[in-house]
């Protein structure tokens, strides 16, 4: 099958790539654009490790085709920090020691950022249910929730 040419925006930069029409967005990001922040935990949409934003919508990039990115904007964990300055969610995840092996962390950050954009003051239950699609095998989730609450509070204060 011949490759297709795709033009898209990734973390604010315009990007072009060629990909197999059957190739997932996750594989394109990782293998063609060397953005390995999004991880493959399952490849079937069940773990959230591959979470990215596609035109402002939270998606599992393992369930999206690379070709679907044509003309769209993609945001990944690599674009979260502003240069050297970490996003408050990133900072709070570190401060709360809310990661262990770290494979789930990029997906959780992208998902949490999407939540706070919709709802700057989520209740604990809202966080828990929003993140129910992001598996973490290491932490038991407690510190992750606290870090997100803390970041949300800081972001509300700053706004």
């Amino acid at each position, binding site marked *: 099958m011949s490759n297709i040419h795709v033009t898209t925006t990734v973390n604010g930069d315009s990007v072009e790539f060629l990909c197999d029409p059957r190739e997932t967005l996750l594989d394109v990001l990782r293998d063609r654009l060397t953005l390995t922040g999004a991880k493959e*935990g399952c490849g079937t949409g069940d773990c959230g490790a591959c979470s990215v934003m596609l035109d402002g919508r939270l998606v599992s990039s393992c369930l999206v085709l690379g070709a679907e990115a044509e003309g769209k904007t993609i945001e990944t964990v690599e674009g979260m920090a502003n240069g050297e300055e970490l996003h408050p969610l990133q900072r709070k995840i570190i401060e709360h020691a809310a*990661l262990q092996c770290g494979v789930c962390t990029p997906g959780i950050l992208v998902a949490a950022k999407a939540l706070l954009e919709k709802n700057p003051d989520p209740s604990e239950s809202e966080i828990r249910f929003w993140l129910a699609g992001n598996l973490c095998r290491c932490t038991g989730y407690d510190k992750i929730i606290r870090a997100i609450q803390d970041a949300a509070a800081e972001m509300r204060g700053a706004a």
Partner: protein
Amino acid sequence: MSVKAPLPHDTAGLHVAGSARYIDDIPVPANCLHLAFGLSNEARGVITGADLSAVRAAPGVITVLKATDLPHENDVSAAAHDEPLLAQGEVFYHGQPIFLVVATSHLAARKAARLANITISKRPAIITIDEALSANSRFEGEALVWNNGDAETALNTAPRNVEGSIEIGGQEHFYLESQAALAQPQENGDMLINSSTQHPTEIQHKVAEALGKPMHSVRVESRRMGGGFGGKESQGNALAVACAVAASQTGQPCKMRYDRDDDMVITGKRHDFRINYRAGFTKDGKILGVEFVHYARCGWAADLSLPVADRAMLHADNAYYVPAMRIESHRLKTNTTSATAYRGFGGPQGMLGMERVMDHIAHELKLDPAELRQRNFYASQKDTGPKQRTHYNQKVTDFELHEMLERLTDTAQYAARKKAVSDWNANNDILKKGLAFSPLKFGISFTLSHLNQAGALVHIYQDGSVHLNHGGTEMGQGLNQKIAQVAASEFGLPMERIRITATDTAKVPNTSATAASSGSDLNGMAVKNACNKLKKRIIRILSNHWETTQSDVIFTDGMVQIGHHSMSFDAAARLAYESRVSLSATGFYRTPKLSWDRLKGRGRPFYYFAYGAAITEVVIDTLTGENRILRTDILHDAGTSLNPALDIGQVEGAYVQGAGWLTMEELVWDTSGRLQTHAPSTYKIPTCADRPDVFNVALWPGENRENTIYRSKAVGEPPFMLGISAFLALSDAIAACGEIYPALDAPATPERILKAVNRVRLG
């Protein structure tokens, strides 16, 4: 001082930026090839034909290897030489690798692997514990039996008895990063392996065997794993060996990562157990004797099953003094994946057997289960009488649980909540609540005593910055941070002056697996040993320099002080360098005081014990079996914690994983031996929504009585077993539905809970 500081993971900054590299993130040369296994779709049989022409013809395929194409050893077992990389003539489980596809992409390799035409003449497969027993299919020839005292007489003469049986399911590790390895050929036929492994030395050993080379021709590097939990102690061997063989044949780098489905089908899991028990006790609930029969389903190959089953026996007492005990342990060989190491290494299963006994007795005597447990605890370390011994004759000298129980029942308001739960249950027919306490005592050390050793390599550069390596591997537990804290404290340096790089067999040789919770105990001491050698050298230099005697030396705040002289550490390093003194040292440590005879079941297998206690409250819906954890309170003993933030993280994560094992994580093999739950769509690990609503975790402010690294205690595995309290709480809620004992099996899925509720309701 850096030790005891609650610092986050050392590479947390990389993780939040998405730039921490796992195997699959390492940039590889453009000619890198990708591997996939072709798997058996029968659980047992003889391979009568293997037509791989379609595989070879598939797009992107470079070569396909069968067992007969392997140049040297065809073995990836941990020790027993019973696990071929590729099946040779016969297959022993559904999912066993039969051939290896080498292709230009991961997807091309996987797709091609499905095109084979393999014919297998089926043989009767042994899947269940009962099938294995009736076929007498086992490892070690016969059951291992340990006797301490005369359990039979104790049982026959005891005023009261209970007996029963519990089924305990296995568990998939579900490390979020699946198994992966990368092999890159070097000059002179040498091989560089990057592996997601807890045991780089074993990878080195197996790759060397497979290539027919001495170990010095193979270098293994492990920077980090995306979770291990025991699943990467031996299960990474196959990938690393496959990559090495393919790389040596093609001369190109080769990478292999299991897709999640393949990972779940191919790799080993926690052993499922059946435990039969009979216990005799007084009418106040004092245990007089217990008999256990352990049936462990080990799968098709020995792997680590024998030490796992041993450790289950070693934890059959959990925290209780049992005057007479008999344990019979059957290690059953079945046509399922080879069960392997998993956090706790058999300890959780053995412990659950004893907690079931306690729970059953409490129900029988209508005694408060926490009270009953305390009556049977080993004597407190403060007790001045002669020390009690375990059923394997080790003295229990550091017992902390009396005090921990008192503290925890107080902070968790156990008595008041127990009352509130029973009031609730009296007034509610549909939703029933349960509350349960469980303690744990976990033995720390490898039971194969020679594994209790570690090495380290520490360099001080002439600018005073420190670089070190040790034999432990980083799987998310924060080992490198703890070890860096040790070095920073020893040298009195800020953390940023210490750098730890990937675990590397070329830096520290002959390492043990990072397992048995031993990572910081062993490697911390080895690093301290190396730091001490270097400090001595620096002290000698400075003493000469200032012409002073060597007492009163302090390394602190980046300075070295001797008496009233002082100099920056950096300047001291420079001076040592200019004085032609070596600033590089190796360190070594071996755990003292161990002696163990596993066949007799006598000795001191453990250097010390770690303790913990949990109280969990749950609610169940008696119409559907659905359930939730409402609140969990934990008090855990990490000795003098090297890093409370990391240790509490271990406790929280371990508890949730332990509760997952006993509640929602269900492995289902069908009668033909096919694993039905081989993806997260069907195998459910706890999610964010399953974590307890209220989750209070505290560390017990104790210190290790043994001379461990800064008097800390190992923390990787022990808190896993606190999850038992969730299981007991579910049983408590079910018990509220009637009179009889629920005799709940694990995992307590909604289906099992519903069945148990109905059983109890019918009486």
